[in-house]
């Protein structure tokens, strides 16, 4: 009888310890960006950049989870990247806090942090981004900034840029851009 009481006490202790964790959940919030973002640049420095001004408050899942949001566990950028040129391009994404409207790559790199990439896209080819590989390409500093903004006002801006390699220009299009966040909440 004493042993039964001991086991029962241990069970209650375990459940009580875990009690504050029993209502938590993990949800997926998404932000849909522009259907097509054209990005181009030349070695001389002129650039066309892609801009997605993210407002997570437009997403029902985020709005419901925000009150109990503990952390952003996972970030991924989805969509496809089409290389419009005849040389390999290296797309990458940067993020800035709040809603910003920078117009060239130099401004973005000096005011934001790298969020994703880069990857190589072969000439005249289309790369469909994979959720798992995309999550692995996210840079920690960028993910941390997205996490802070998600815990704050839910607004940040993602920029699509190209990396100039050698003396070649680049020209690519990001299609059906989505930013995916896995949110851990305590409610």
């Amino acid at each position: 009888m004493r042993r039964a009481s001991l086991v029962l006490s241990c069970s209650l202790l375990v459940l009580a310890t875990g009690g504050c964790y029993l209502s938590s959940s993990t949800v997926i919030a998404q932000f849909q960006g522009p259907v097509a973002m054209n990005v181009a640049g030349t070695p001389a420095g002129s650039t066309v950049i892609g801009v997605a001004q993210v407002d997570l408050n437009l997403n029902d899942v985020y709005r419901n989870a925000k009150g109990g949001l503990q952390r952003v566990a996972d970030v991924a950028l989805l969509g496809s990247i089409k290389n419009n040129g005849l040389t390999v391009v290296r797309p990458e994404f940067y993020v800035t806090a709040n809603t910003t409207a920078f117009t060239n790559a130099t401004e973005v790199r000096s005011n934001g942090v790298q969020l994703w990439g880069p990857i190589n896209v072969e000439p005249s080819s289309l790369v469909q981004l994979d959720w798992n590989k995309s999550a692995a390409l996210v840079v920690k500093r960028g993910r941390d900034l997205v996490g802070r903004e998600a815990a704050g006002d839910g607004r940040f801006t993602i920029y699509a840029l190209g990396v100039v390699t050698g003396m070649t220009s680049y020209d690519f299009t990001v299609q059906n851009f989505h930013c995916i966040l896995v949110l851990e909440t305590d409610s």
Partner: protein
Amino acid sequence: MRVPPTGREHLTTLCVWMLLACASPVHAVPVALAIFGGENVPLQQQDNDPGPQFGVRVPVLALPKLTLEPYFSIAEGGRHEETFGPTTYDRIGFNVLSYGAIVAYGHMGLGSGFPVFPFVGLGAYRLSREGTTPRTELGCSAGVGYAYALPVGFALQVRSEYVVVPTHGTSRRALNLNLGVQFRFHPVP
């Protein structure tokens, strides 16, 4: 830097546990080796679907109605599919490697008596998958099992187990349902 134990090290720990149990001065302590498999069902995790679970356990009937059991298990989360825009994507589930021990009130097939046993456990849970920083957390479990003794030291077990792995203010929770078969190797049947 702390290096997480490898699967080989976990198995070594289990073997050491078995040898210590067999070398116990109380020679009549029953010890068994069990393998099990079943389903791991993540609870309230949109990014992690149900998947298989399997592992090994070493139940030791330490007292007439109290069993201690170290275990080692691997659970594979299933792929979660979701459509964004015109494209359907999938995210692989977590690979959960866990090791620890449970305490059960009952003989778990190593003795005679009531076949149903409640149990609680404590273990280390390593969660990993592509694109997510791996982490190892201390988790706890509670559940109930049913043991059916078979001839020559064999027994079948069915278990249902609720697992909570705290993760910095939240948790990853799962329900494990599994079936196991065990062989009592000490004392020799």
